[in-house]
C-alpha cells in the first residue's frame, strides 16, 4: 500500500495551496490519482482537489473555452462546448487517452501537471494556444502553456495549483487535428502531432504545430509554423509540404528507448505533420463556423 500519513480534501483553490504548505512533511496535490496511484510518489500527505471547484468546463463571455484543471477526460469527450470548439479536436484527443474507466477520474490538469513528454493532452492544447491559470494563496497568475513545462516531470508550479487552461475564442473556428501514434491502442504515445490552422480567404492566417513525446517537454515546431503562416492554400504544393514536414522533424529532439528509436520518431514527426496539414486543408467540410460564440 502507498505509505501516506494523511489525505486532505480542499474545498477551494486558496485552501488547497494553504493545505499544501501547512506541513508537516512533504505534500502533493491529487486529482484523479490515475498517475499517482501507479507511481506512489514519496510524500507524507496529499491534497485532493476534486472538490475545490475547479472542475468546470465553460465558454467565457469573451468566447474563450475554459477547461478546469479537475475536469475529467470523459467530461472533455462529451461536453458540447468542447466538441464544438475547433472541430472537436480536444474531445478527440481526450478520447484517445487511457481507457473508458480511467477517463472517468483522470483529469486534464493531472495530465499536464504530471508533465511527461508524452502527456496526451498537451499537443492539442499547445496547438490551440492554451493559457494556464495558476493559483497561489492570495493571487492568480496566467502564462502560456508553452512556458508551463520546464523539463520531464517538471513544471513551473512548485507548490502552486493549476486552476485550469483557457483556449482563446479566436481558435474556435480554427481547423485542428491531432494524431497519436502508438504501438497498441492502449500504450502511451510514441509520437504525437497536433496541427491547428486558422484559414481565411484561401490563405493560412495562423499555423500551429505541436509535438509530443519527441523532446524533453511537449513543444511547438515554430519554424515549420512560420513557413506555413501567410501561405495561400493553392501555393502549398507537395514540395512545399515536404519542406514544412522536414523542418518540423528537424526541430524535435527525440530519445531512443524500448518503444522506438529516435530516428523513427523523427521520421514519424515528418509523416504525421504532412498528413495532418494535408488533411486539414483538403477538408471541405468547413468547420470554421463550428462552435463560434
Amino acid at each position, binding site marked *: *500500500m*502507498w*505509505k*501516506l*500519513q*494523511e*489525505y486532505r*480534501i480542499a474545498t477551494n483553490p486558496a485552501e488547497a495551496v494553504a493545505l499544501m504548505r501547512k506541513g508537516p512533511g512533504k505534500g502533493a496535490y*491529487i486529482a*484523479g*490519482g*490515475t498517475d499517482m*496511484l*501507479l507511481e*506512489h510518489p514519496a510524500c507524507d*500527505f*496529499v491534497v*485532493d482537489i*476534486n472538490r475545490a471547484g475547479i472542475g468546470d468546463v465553460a465558454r467565457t463571455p469573451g468566447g474563450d473555452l475554459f477547461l478546469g484543471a479537475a475536469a475529467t477526460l*470523459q467530461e472533455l469527450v462529451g461536453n458540447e462546448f468542447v466538441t464544438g470548439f475547433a472541430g472537436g479536436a480536444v474531445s478527440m484527443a481526450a478520447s484517445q487517452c*487511457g*481507457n*473508458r*474507466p*480511467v477517463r*472517468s*477520474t483522470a483529469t486534464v490538469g493531472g495530465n499536464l501537471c504530471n508533465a511527461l513528454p508524452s502527456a496526451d493532452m498537451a499537443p492539442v492544447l499547445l496547438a490551440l494556444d492554451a493559457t494556464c491559470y495558476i493559483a497561489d494563496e492570495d493571487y492568480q497568475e496566467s502564462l502560456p502553456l508553452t512556458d508551463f513545462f520546464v523539463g520531464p516531470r517538471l513544471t513551473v508550479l512548485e507548490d502552486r495549483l493549476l486552476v485550469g487552461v483557457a483556449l482563446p475564442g479566436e481558435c474556435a473556428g480554427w481547423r485542428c487535428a491531432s494524431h497519436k501514434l502508438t504501438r497498441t*491502442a*492502449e500504450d502511451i504515445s510514441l509520437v504525437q502531432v497536433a496541427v491547428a490552422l486558422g484559414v481565411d480567404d484561401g490563405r493560412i492566417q495562423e499555423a500551429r504545430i505541436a509535438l509530443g513525446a519527441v523532446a524533453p517537454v511537449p513543444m511547438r515546431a515554430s519554424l515549420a509554423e512560420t513557413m506555413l503562416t501567410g501561405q495561400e492554400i493553392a501555393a502549398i504544393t507537395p514540395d512545399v509540404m515536404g519542406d514544412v514536414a522536414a523542418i518540423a522533424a528537424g526541430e524535435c529532439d527525440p530519445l531512443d528507448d524500448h518503444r522506438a528509436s529516435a530516428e523513427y520518431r523523427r521520421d514519424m514527426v515528418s509523416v504525421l505533420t504532412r498528413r495532418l496539414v494535408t488533411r486539414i486543408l483538403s477538408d471541405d467540410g468547413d468547420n470554421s463556423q463550428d462552435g463560434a460564440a
Partner: protein
Amino acid sequence: MNISLNLNGTATDWEVAPGQTLLQALRASGAFSVKLGCETGDCGSCTVLLDGQPVNSCVVPAARVNGSRVTTLEGLLGDDLMIRLQTELVEQGAVQCGYCIPGMLISLYALLKQGPPIDEETIRHALTGNLCRCTGYVKPVEAARAVAAVLEETS
C-alpha cells in the same frame, strides 16, 4: 480516517488508510465481485460505478469516495437490466473462467443505462478498459447488442 459513502444503496462508514485504494477497501468490506487483477488501471477486473460512472477501483483512492455513491455487482443483483445482461452473456457463451466478468458487466451496464445510441462501436468503446483472456470480445459485444436491441424495442 473515517469516511461515509453510499455503498450499493446503503449508508456505510469505513475506516480507511490514507494510501488505500477503493479496490482494497471494497474487498475488505466483503464486496468480492470486485477482482484484483493488474492494480495498474489496465485490466478492468476491478471496475465499479462511482456516482454512476465506471472507474477502475484500483486507481481510485478510497478516501476520495467520502460522500459518494459506489455501486458494485453485489448492488445490482436484483436489477432487471443487470439480470438481462448476465443471462445474455451466459447464453452467448461469453463466460469462461469468469474473472473479467464482474468488471465487464459493470462497464456494459453503465453504457446500457446511458441509453441509445448503442451500436458495436459504442460497445467496443465502453469495453476499452476490460481485458478478457479467455473469450475475447466478440461474444460480449454480441450479448450487449442483443440487450440493447431489446431495450430499443421496449422503449
